């Protein structure tokens, strides 16, 4: 057991190391550097700036410095927001993104699996077609359309909630829906398809032959196997949800971490991008691990793999 955990941990470190190295050198290959300001600055000032942040050093020295700081848990300063460190930004934005992501994930799982299971119970009936059509609409409405639409109806017209912000409990509703509905639709399609696959499996027939009720067989045994594609999908999906969404955060004015992923890359904010990549990679690794563990738990046969 301990050996397995250690092995997986070492693998995770290797993944982080590779992705960090690639990112680090990719960033240096983008022209313009991190100090392209709205107005131009004199060459001498630029040199001083680069010297202040150690960017006048050869790239490999910068790299070693970064690794050195990283080992002490220091992701360095951002080049865009004076006085802020990458650690501070991630730490202060993470709780918001975590909350929004968890809510959206909750919506996605409840609705998605619920609809998928319901739809596959009696394929072709109204309980299949109606919810699945709704799910398709969810897929056809990108977040940048759904978000403003929800705001127009529920915030501007009905005035039930605020149009933006992250202060009151009800401020969570619309963003979580916007983010969650798309994933819900996705999960519903996956669930339905895979539930249909397992419906005809032998063990279900056996269980039913033994006199277990049809509904019980379907929900307990069917779901256990039918859920596997969703579980595989859940690793990256959860990581994506928790690392925030550029679009949803912009539309709703939410102080999450998602906007930084795009903006820092556009600004060439080296340290910020590296920090975020490490953070996101860690999420991916953790959630993929959880998803793999869940896969084994659902079907112990996989343990041999």
């Amino acid at each position, binding site marked *: 057991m301990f050996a397995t955990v250690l092995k997986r941990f070492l693998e995770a470190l290797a993944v982080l190391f590779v992705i960090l190295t690639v990112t680090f050198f990719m960033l240096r290959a983008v022209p313009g550097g991190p100090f392209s300001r709205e107005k131009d600055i004199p060459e001498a000032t630029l040199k001083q700036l680069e010297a202040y942040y150690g960017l006048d050093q050869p790239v490999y020295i910068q790299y070693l410095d970064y690794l050195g700081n990283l080992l002490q848990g220091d992701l360095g300063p951002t080049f865009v927001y004076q006085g802020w460190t990458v650690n501070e930004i991630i730490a202060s934005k993470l709780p918001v993104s975590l909350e929004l992501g968890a809510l959206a994930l909750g919506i996605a799982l409840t609705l998605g699996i619920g609809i998928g299971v319901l739809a596959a119970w009696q394929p072709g009936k109204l309980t299949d*077609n109606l919810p699945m059509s709704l799910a398709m609409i969810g897929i056809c*409405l990108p977040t940048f359309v759904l978000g403003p639409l929800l705001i127009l109806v529920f915030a501007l017209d009905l005035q039930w909630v605020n149009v933006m912000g992250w202060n009151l409990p009800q401020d969570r509703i619309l963003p979580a829906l916007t983010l969650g509905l798309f994933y819900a639709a996705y999960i519903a399609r996956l669930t339905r398809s895979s539930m*249909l*696959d397992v419906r005809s499996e032998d063990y279900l027939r056996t269980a039913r032959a033994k006199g277990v009720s049809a509904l019980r067989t379907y929900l307990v045994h069917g779901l256990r196997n039918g859920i*596997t594609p969703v579980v*595989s*999908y859940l690793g*990256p999906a959860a990581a994506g949800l928790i690392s925030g969404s550029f679009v949803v955060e912009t539309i709703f004015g939410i102080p999450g971490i998602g906007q930084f992923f795009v903006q820092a890359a556009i600004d060439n904010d080296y340290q910020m991008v590296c920090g975020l990549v490490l953070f*996101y990679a860690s999420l991916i690794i953790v959630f993929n691990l959880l998803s793999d563990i869940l896969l084994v738990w659902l079907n112990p046969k996989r343990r041999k793999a």
Partner: protein
Amino acid sequence: MSAHSAHSQSEAVAPRASAHSRSPGREAWRRFRQNPMAVGGLVIVTLIVLACIVGPWLLPHDAESQNLARGASGPSATHWLGTDILGRDLLARILSGGRISLMVGAVATTVAVCIGVVYGMISGYAGGRVDRAMMRLVEVLYSMPFTVFVILLMVFFGRQLWLIFVAIGAVEWLTMARIIRGQVLGLKEQSFVQAARCLGQGPVGIMRKHFLPNVAGIIIVYATLTVPGVMLLEAFISFLGLGVQPPQTSWGDLIRSGAESMEEYPWMLLFPSLFFALTLFSLNFLGDGLRDALDPKRGK
């Protein structure tokens, strides 16, 4: 919406005996034909593709010629679906944008699905170290800073259409690979696979004969789910400057800019979204029909 869906139809009409008496391909086609939703989907997708290919030549308006005086006007007799902010005919722009979107949707999805399926099957079948190494590579690619990657592609190769496929292809296959691997991990311990292995069937044969048919359903569903993702990703990539550039457009681009002014000029969002949704719905029914027609267990 009709009360009949893909599945009930195929299950009801596929007599068990005949499944063994005909060639599997013809049998699948026969089952597909008897599914009205699937056939309808196929017809509509074909019509949309044809309209996008031929339409721009037949329309009285060019997708790129502007008429600033008629900017942002609603649907009328001259401009059936209205005009955009620069007075370009929206229908012409939707059809010519459809060329880009459909091509990107088809090519990028095919590439992503092929890579994902093969990669996932190998990883799941091989298991052990190979599996772990392959899955760690997937994790590395997942975490790659996509925006930086796109900007870099643009800096080094300039603006070229094929780069869209590289950029999209690099990310879209990853989830497919994970899902297929998860399914294969379960499948390979099942009795019929064990039996095939005992009978001396090689890995390629097992993957083709036993894994592929069993994951076909999930592949098709996932592929139809990938199409909208790919089309919207194209809009983001083009926004960053790689790929399609103004005055050319695409559905994703039209929807994105239409969403900006949905209250003032609703037609600029509504019509491109309708084409987008219609295509996706049709693809979806088409996919469901294919899935049922190809499903080996339906015949049992």
